[in-house]
């Protein structure tokens, strides 16, 4: 997989794409297509490279597998076919069979559900709660900010797995409980990002202008601060999702994520560890799938983040 390093930022000399006024009327399809490509270039810039699109394609594939797991033409992920036990890939099963003779491909597809659902919910929870707390702290400052930061420091004093194990023991092992536990873990990070961005936005002239015109605090927060803070916070989301996939699989590896029989990638790797000497594919297939997913999330996230940071600095 080609990996390009270094952020391709625009140099100051390079002109920024200018928003063109396009009339949709008589010119028809050609101008619409042109305006679409201009719009795409405005959002994404040009030249994301093959690596980016490969990674994005893989993520779409994983998401589609998770969404359509039950209707895809794969075998039953829970059906043990003992004769297939530990069969290598491309023999009886496309990606081989595990220690109970269950189809690995279908377990991967169904396991993707857990990773996708948990990473989406956990990041949303962290973003919503942490983001709002951070914006409020950055806007109101004072005692509230100091108290919040002190509480976050205390939470950060616990190694994440220690905190997570205790949380999971407390709220249980259902899909929602695990998402919630991991989501709570993300509150400090998001609060910090949102607070830092709010601090810089609040000093801008347009906030002062809104205040001078007599806008209410709520209006300033929602109409002036939020739209400018939300982009960097969202851009952080994909990288956070990659970390959530890792965190969830670590829990699953310890047998403390969503309970069996629901297949999870981390659980599959743990199962494969038992057969490492005779059938390494049982651990390798889910490992490589997960590695590609996390790598893609990191890569796409990194690319989008550097793109949005450029946009933000040009405001």
């Amino acid at each position: 997989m080609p990996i390009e390093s270094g952020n391709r930022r625009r140099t100051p000399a390079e002109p920024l794409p200018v928003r063109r006024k396009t009339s949709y009327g008589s010119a028809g399809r050609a101008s619409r297509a042109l305006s679409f490509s201009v719009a795409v270039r405005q959002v994404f810039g040009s030249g994301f490279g093959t690596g980016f699109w490969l990674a994005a394609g893989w993520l779409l594939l994983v998401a589609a597998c998770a969404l359509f797991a039950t209707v895809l033409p794969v075998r039953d992920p829970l059906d043990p076919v003992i004769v297939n036990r530990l069969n290598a890939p491309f023999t009886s099963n496309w990606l081989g069979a595990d220690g109970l003779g269950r189809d690995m491909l279908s377990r991967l597809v169904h396991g993707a559900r857990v990773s996708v659902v948990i990473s989406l919910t956990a990041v949303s929870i962290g973003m919503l709660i942490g983001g709002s707390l951070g914006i409020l702290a950055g806007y109101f400052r004072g005692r509230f900010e100091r108290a919040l930061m002190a509480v976050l420091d205390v939470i950060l004093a616990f190694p994440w797995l220690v905190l997570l194990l205790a949380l999971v023991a407390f709220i249980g092992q259902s899909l929602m409980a695990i998402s919630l536990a991991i989501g709570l873990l993300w509150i400090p990070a998001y609060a910090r990002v949102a607070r830092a961005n709010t601090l810089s936005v609040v000093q801008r002239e347009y906030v002062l202008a809104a205040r001078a015109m007599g806008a209410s605090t709520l209006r300033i927060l929602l109409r002036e601060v939020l739209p400018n803070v939300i982009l960097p916070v969202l851009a952080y989301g994909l990288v956070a999702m990659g970390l959530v996939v890792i965190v969830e699989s670590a829990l699953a590896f310890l047998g403390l994520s969503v309970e069996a029989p629901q297949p999870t990638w981390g659980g599959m790797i743990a199962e494969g560890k038992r057969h490492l000497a005779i059938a390494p594919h049982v651990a390798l297939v889910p490992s490589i799938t997960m590695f590609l997913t996390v790598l893609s999330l990191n890569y796409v996230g990194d690319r989008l983040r550097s793109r949005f940071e450029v946009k933000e600095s040009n405001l």
Partner: protein
Amino acid sequence: MHLVLRKLPWLIGTLLAVSFFTFLLVSLLPGDPAVMILGAGGVSPEAVAALRAELGLDRPLLVRYFDWLGSALTGDFGRSPMTGQSVMDAILSRLPVTIQLGVMAIIIALLLAVPLAMLSAYHAGSRLDRVISGLGFALMSIPSFMMAIFLILILAVSMNLFPATGWVPFSVSPTANLRSAALPALSLAMIELALYMRLLRTDLISTLQQDYITLARAKGVPNWQIMLRHALRPSSFSLMTVVGLQLGGVISGAIIIEEIFALPGVGRLLYQSILQRDLLMVQGIVLFIATAYVVVNFLVDLSYSLLDPRVRHAD
């Protein structure tokens, strides 16, 4: 000294908050310890109540907290009701394994990260830099337990260089001890390596653009001396901070790694205590780990301002 005195109240406040949070977290766990000890079925409510009174569980939460904190300050975390072992003894007997694992991991990571980052920063933008950075990017997408699986597969199963599991104490045989610690430490080191490398590379590149580097070049100082003395030294302070902050990640990784390789360390003790609902043991270990983490970062923070003249004189 002045600095220590100014920061001490912050340290004590954080430690108090950490201890209360630990106590609260573990006290709120579901499952009555008295019932757990006596066994679930066929125990009279009177027997449960008697044991609760004996363990002091019938007193109010705050009273129990101060009682627990008071004895914790004297180094007494109580006795595990499951095994009868003193919690402090249990931690101390397993601590050397975890410390050795963590220290070896950090040393391996630094030994690899520093030269690679220097190479990368010196040739910034070259093909070599891109390969090294891409490798680091890929390493960050591999969780430590997956790295452990890969390493066991390659170095233990196929090449038979190291034992796949087990632990030999240093006092029994130093060479066998290092051999049994090699794979766990390597698995832990890889993620840290990627983080350190990424940070140091960025830091070095910006340092290399400073005027005093140009001056040194103009004076004819040899390149290796510029890299080591003029560039690496100022950059090593932020590296030190990150090594301190990443200690939480190392400890989290150690919990899983110790479980995979069956090492008798603190992380495995914590994991097994959580599975057995041994609350006093969990409380003791979590408080111990969090305290160690806060204190180490406090010391890093102090040494940072003592060693770096720029920070020292800014005060």
